[in-house]
């Protein structure tokens, strides 16, 4: 173990915890609000370990949406992990399969973003241990905060509208995801259709809106000539 690299990863991720801690608490509280117990909160956080999809799944379970819709929605939200996996894979090429399996499990938005930035900066830090410093810290903080949130959850009065914190978290992730006109069109179209389709049965509004929004983005990019990849 390269403790210097690991500690550097922990230090670099520390400022981001300010966003992760309330997010984790909300995920825990949302579990209770959806009528699920502590085991489900722990299960979601350990097995899925992807905040936005956990919240979406909880919201849909709370509304008794069909289980296929719950799964489809959560997985669609996590499709972005494919991009991170592809982007970070060249840096993990020389590791053993067993290490790759472990590193993949703790791959998150933040672990991806910090690590790739560090690798590209020609840092001397050991790649594996820097990544683990970031990713394992996030993992541990996420587990603890969701459990704390689930334990606190029942004590919070309804009037506080704590479930409103969930779309606020999504909003904070959404804004940086709008990088150009085409992604802006995808967001506007996806959002507008979701508002109109909110009454659709089986929570299909969300999936339809996502699909049409993605299509609108791709078409916009084609029409404007696009950015030609990167």
């Amino acid at each position, binding site marked *: 173990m390269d403790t210097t690299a690991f500690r550097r990863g922990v230090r670099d991720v520390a400022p981001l915890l300010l966003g992760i801690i*309330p997010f984790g608490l909300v995920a825990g509280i949302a579990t209770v609000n959806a009528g699920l117990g502590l085991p489900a909160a722990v299960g979601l956080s350990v097995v899925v370990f992807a905040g936005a999809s956990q919240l979406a799944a909880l919201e849909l379970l709370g509304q008794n949406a069909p289980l296929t819709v719950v*799964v489809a929605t959560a*997985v669609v939200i996590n499709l972005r992990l*494919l991009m991170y*996996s592809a982007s970070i894979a060249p840096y993990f090429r020389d590791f053993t399969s067993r290490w790759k399996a472990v590193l993949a499990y703790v791959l998150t938005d933040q672990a991806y973003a910090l690590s790739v930035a560090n690798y590209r900066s020609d840092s001397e830090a050991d790649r594996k241990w820097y990544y683990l410093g970031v990713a394992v810290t996030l993992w541990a903080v996420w587990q603890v905060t969701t459990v704390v949130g689930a334990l606190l959850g029942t004590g919070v009065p309804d009037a506080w509208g704590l479930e*409103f914190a969930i779309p606020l978290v999504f909003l904070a992730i959404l804004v940086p995801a709008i990088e150009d006109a085409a992604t802006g069109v995808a967001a506007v179209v996806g959002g507008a259709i979701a508002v109109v389709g909110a009454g659709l049965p089986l929570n299909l509004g969300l999936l339809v809106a996502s*699909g049409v929004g993605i299509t609108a*983005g791709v078409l916009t990019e084609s029409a404007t000539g696009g950015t030609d990849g990167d």
Partner: protein
Amino acid sequence: MATNYGPVEIAGVIAVIGVLTYACRLSFIALFGRLDEIPPVVERVLRFVPAAVLAALVLPSFVTLDATGFAADKFVAGALAAGVAWQTEDVFATMVTGMGVLWAIRFLL
């Protein structure tokens, strides 16, 4: 808003989402060597997933058009939080603004 699903169904859903999410994470990390890069078509489509999906999740919480009526408190709180998100790109600041405005409207006005 509480689920009618039992523990077995919940556990099943968690397991399926977990396996598929892990598959997304492991995909290219495991494939490299056999597949050298993400197919351009896939990459083009994936680029729009976060914006479209997140917007579809967020907007209906801020703007309600259904039978429950228009919720002005959520709309105002959401709009101000969106402004803060735009300026700061900070999760914490966005949450503090949105919840703060919602509570101010509900408890102070």
